[in-house]
Each structure stands twice: as C-alpha cells, then as structure tokens.
C-alpha cells in the first residue's frame, strides 16, 4: 500500500523525523486556515500518487491568504495524469541550501536491506543512478544486525554531503531506518532531504510503501485505507479480496496463482485474443471466492467471454466447481464460460460441472484449447453485437 505524502509525513513525525509544520486540507477554506496557522510563505502540494505533479502545476508557493486561496482552488480538482486531486498538503515553506536523496528498501538480489543516499537530490534518483552512479552512496544493512551509528556515519561521509549536514543526516537516517523496519515498509524515501541555510536537516517529501502482509500487526493502518484511487473494477475486486488488474481486452480471465494468471494472459494473447483483466483468486480459494470472482468479471461490460483456468494445488477442484454453480444460480452471467480444471480434486470438480455444461459453460482439457475456445467465443460475440448494431441503425 502506497501512502500519500501527507500520510508519509505523519508517519515520519511519529518516528521523530523532522518535517515541516503543516496539515492536509480538502477545501480551500481549510487550506487557508492551515496557512494562517503555520505561517507564510507556505507551499501547497497536490496529494496524488503519481510523479511529475510539480510540472503539472500541482505544487505552488503562496505568500498570503489570497494566493493560498487562488492556488488551493486551482490545485483541488486538478487532473494529474488521470489522478484527480482531492487533498492538498499545506506546509510552511522552507529555505533550501541543498537538496539530497535518501531511501531504504530491500535489495532482492543480496537479500539484505539497501540504504541509498545522494548529494544530488530533488531529481529522479533513477537518472542519478544511471548518469552518475558514483553520486549514489549505498549501504548494505543486515536485517539481523540493523544499522549501527558507526555504519550510518561512514555511509553519510561516503555521500559527501555538505559537512554541515552530516550530523543531522546521521540522526535522520537512523530514524528513517527505524521507520522502515518498525512500520513494516517496503520502501521509505525522502526526496528531497534538505539542508537549510541555518544548517538544519529536514524531510521535505515522504514516499512510503507499506507491506500489506504486515497488516495483522498494524491496526493503525485502517486510517490509510479507502483513500486510494482505483479503477472501479479494481475497487470492487479489492473489496472482495481478489487480486485484480484491469486490462483493455474482452476475454475475462480467472486463474489461481499469480504465475498461472499471468501465463493465462500470455496465452490468450498468443492465440489472438485480448485479456480484459488479470485476476488471481489466490491459493485455497473457496466456492464463495470463485463466485465473487465470476461476479466481478460479469460486471465488466467489455467482457465477451470468460476463461477460467485452474490448476489446483492448494485450491480444490470441487470448491471451484461449486463456486461456478453458485454464481450461475445467483446472477445472470452475460458471457459464455470456458473452463480448464486440473490438479487437486479436479475429477470431483469436473463431475459437479458436468450437469451444468452447455454452450454457455464449456469444459476443455488443456490451457491452450480453452484459450482458443474463449477467444473464438469472444470474437463471435463481438461480431454478433456489431451485426446487431448495424441492424438497429
């Protein structure tokens, strides 16, 4: 789960990382009230989970109430690359002497944590990494040992910041590491981390991605949910606990396991079709989960045929079959279904489905055959509806 900047800053503040005085506002009046409280000049920043908001006019400086009113009014409701701004963060503007970059994440290849620090902040760090890799100081942290103050200091020295910033940077980075581990984050990033003319070091931005698997030990995360902007299909699926990604085609897909779900997209593509979605019902899905998945797919008007591809390991064939039967009884499934069912208790599952098979529910023995059939059915449905449209005209 990716946090908005303001949520990230609130989280940083809990770990003692200095951030500017500010607050989130959903209305122009709230923005002005915050500006009055924190003191001018203020920076008004669009809260969206997409890069490039500055260029899009989503970050503005205001010196008084009128300017705050004008900028907040323009930014709220602004569409930045498809993300509509519902909230702005208003904070006291900082004087900046230098801008740095700092982050912690997992280095998957080394299987250890990786801290990255650069004296060249404020820009995309990918660009720095590519164009001047020496400007990126790295520290490998063993998760068992953690980050010692000595290791942190050596790392900061390696980054060659302004020497005035070293002590402040060490202090912040130790706290940032604590936040990374303690808050169960996959990524914590400060860009820019700034040095003020008075010599203070301070986080001007906050990018935090939390590990959804750790939700069980973070009841406080409830405050973060429900705010992300999702494709309506993705929202419905997420509410039902399904892993769903909307795509542009017309063959609705349901599979178990991310790998098989991706392979199902690939094979539909290869036999000449276009997947409408990626949907992973996960391991050990019950009949109810299967029924939910079918309903989500059925609610997508672009779907012309449905391909269910199940290879049960932990998922049981009879549960899958019962889910399909249950969904057929509950809702009117608009598109024909092609199913390929293999693995654990597949025989039982196929037996259950047999009684319901028709030209609307077809069973195929292999993944390739099932994909071909589903793609052909989608094509036929598309042609039929095109003919119908011509007829009505």
């Amino acid at each position, binding site marked *: 789960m990716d946090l908005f900047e303001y949520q990230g800053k609130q989280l940083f503040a809990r770990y003692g990382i200095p951030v500017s005085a500010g607050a989130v506002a959903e209305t122009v009046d709230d923005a002005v009230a915050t500006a009055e409280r924190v003191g001018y000049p203020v920076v008004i920043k669009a809260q969206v989970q997409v890069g490039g908001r500055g260029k899009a006019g989503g970050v503005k400086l205001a010196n008084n109430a009128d300017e705050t009113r004008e900028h907040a009014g323009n930014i709220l409701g602004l569409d930045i690359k498809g993300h509509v701004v519902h909230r702005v963060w208003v904070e006291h503007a900082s004087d900046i002497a230098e801008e740095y970059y700092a982050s912690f994440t*997992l280095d*998957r290849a080394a299987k250890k944590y990786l801290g990255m620090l650069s004296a060249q902040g404020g820009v995309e760090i990918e660009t720095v990494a590519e164009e001047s890799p020496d400007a990126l100081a790295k520290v490998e942290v063993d998760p068992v040992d953690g980050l010692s103050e000595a290791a942190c200091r050596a790392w900061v020295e390696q980054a060659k910041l302004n020497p005035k910033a070293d002590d402040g940077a060490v202090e912040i980075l130790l706290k940032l590491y604590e936040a990374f581990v303690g808050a169960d984050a996959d990524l914590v990033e400060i860009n820019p981390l700034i040095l003020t003319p008075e010599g203070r070091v301070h986080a001007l931005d906050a990018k935090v991605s939390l590990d959804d698997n750790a939700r069980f030990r973070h009841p406080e995360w409830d405050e973060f949910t429900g705010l992300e902007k999702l494709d309506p299909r993705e929202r419905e699926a997420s509410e039902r606990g399904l892993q769903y990604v909307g795509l542009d085609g017309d063959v609705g897909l349901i599979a178990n*396991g991310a*790998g098989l779900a991706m392979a199902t997209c690939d*094979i539909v593509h290869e036999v000449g079709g276009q997947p409408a979605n990626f949907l992973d019902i996960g391991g050990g899905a019950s009949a109810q989960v299967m029924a939910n998945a079918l309903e989500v797919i059925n609610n997508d008007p672009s779907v012309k045929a449905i391909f269910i591809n199940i*290879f049960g*390991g932990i998922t049981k064939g009879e549960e899958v079959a019962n889910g399909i039967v249950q969904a057929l009884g509950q809702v009117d499934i608009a598109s024909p279904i092609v199913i390929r069912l293999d693995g654990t208790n597949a025989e039982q599952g196929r037996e259950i489905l047999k009684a319901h098979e028709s030209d609307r529910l077809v069973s195929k023995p292999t993944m390739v055959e099932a994909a071909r059939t589903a793609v052909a059915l989608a094509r036929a449905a598309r042609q039929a509806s095109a003919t119908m449209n011509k007829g009505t005209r």
Partner: protein
Amino acid sequence: MSILVNADTKVIVQGLTGGQGKFYGLRNRAYGTKVVGGVSPKKAGTDVEGIPVYASVKDAVAETGATATMVIVPAPAAADAVLEAAEAGLALIVVVTEGIPMHDEASFYNRVKRDFPGSRILGPNCPGLLTPGECNIGFIPAEVAQAGGPVGIVSRSGTLTYQALNELAEKGIGVTTCVGIGGDPVPGTSFIDCLELFEADAATKAVIMFGEIGGSAEEEAAAYIEANMSKPVVSYVAGVTAPPGKKMGHAGAIISGSKGTAQAKMEVLEAAGVRVATNPTAAGELMAEVVSGL
C-alpha cells in the same frame, strides 16, 4: 536420483493440527512421503490419524530422526516456526505459508544463513517440492508426475510448477525433482541453488525453469547458466503481456521500468543459451525436443 528429498527423507509438519496442515500432511503421507510427526505445543501427545504430535520441533526430531519440515502455520507465527526448525537442526525447511511480512522473511533468512548454515529454507509462499514416486512435501498435485527423470523442474510460481509437471506428463517425460521456490521477496532457495543441484545430479539431464516478471532472479540465473551449466535448460517467463507499473498479484511480480520485464528476461536467457518458450505448453514441446535428442 533426485535433489533435496528422496524416499528416505523423514518429514515433520509444523501446523499438522490445523485444517490445511492436516489436509496436506495426510495427502503427502498418502503419496508415500515419510511424514513422521507433527508439532503443536497445545496438542502434544495426541496424533493426527496415526501421526504423532510433539510439543516442539526438538522433541519431534529426537523421537523421529526427521531431517525436513513443512511449515504450514499462520503467517504471524511463521518466523518463530522457521527459527525453531533451524535451531533443532533440520536440513530442509519448506515454508508454504503465504502472506509473511517482508521484514520477517529478510530477518529469518539472514539469521538462518548466519547461525544455522546446515539448514536450507525453501519458500516462503512456495508450493513445496516433489521427487516423483518418493517424496512430496507441500501442495504439488503429484498424481500426474512420472518418476525417474530425466528432467528437473524449478519454478517461481506455484501453479506454474504444476503446469510444468503436467506439460511433461502429457508428453510422457519423467521428472527427477520438481521444486517450487516461491515468488516472495526473500526466497530461501534461489533458481541458482536449484540449477547447481540439478547440474550435480546424475539422473537429471535437462532442466525446465519457469520464471516470472519482477526482480532479477531470472537474469542472475541466466548468468549462472552461461558460466556453469552443461545441461540444457528450457524456460518460460510469465507476464509477457503484463502492463508496466502494475503489480500482478504477489510481491514478486512487479515491473518497473525496463528491467524486470518478461521480454528483458527472455532476451537475457536466450543470450545465455537457454531455449525460451512463450507459453508453458510451448515450453513442454521444446523440452520434448530436447529430451528426444539426449
């Protein structure tokens, strides 16, 4: 011949008394796996259809001589279960539990690697492993698999592990060992670990490797294959059609930028001499060609 497990491997199940643990523990035993014990502090002294339940892994190992475990406990308890297994000296710790926090995985992986070098973790979030006709630990539906080789299977995704077995079975090709390494951020056993074991296993003559988008495990495997493998490798990388920047299902499968895409991985693998297929069925067909030429 096989890698990691064989007919003599004695296995305990941490979580045998839970619903999933019981189902898969018994299913593994029914396949012929020597499932010799379970662990549950609260239910010590009882049994699950004849499989004795012990209070701790240490007790279970002392009583049964087990060398492997399947960890099938809820995610919040997984880290402790893995460390308990390593402390008890088990050589193979198969973690099928899914949904374990990344920081727990990073922590127990490094702890075991440093303090218990004799223990290997497979997983987490993996389907387990199978030596057909001898030993099955985990979720792999083993019925279709043919024993005896000459092909070794290694896959990141669980369901694609089954698909690989199925493709080979349909062509009448046997398997030495089939390993699902799991798609989580910190896998205890990597592609390279398995490739190395297959290269050293006399019965394995060729390897099928199923990868997926995200991370750089396939690229690392490609470099290893080019430098060290004499046996032919056939591969498929799931997610050719995945749109960039979208998270496809689990933590392993995220693409950002060009690195980590299926296309990039396939190119690197091909350059390393791997025969790359565009779907699992085509991979099975390529492997059939390889096997007929052995």
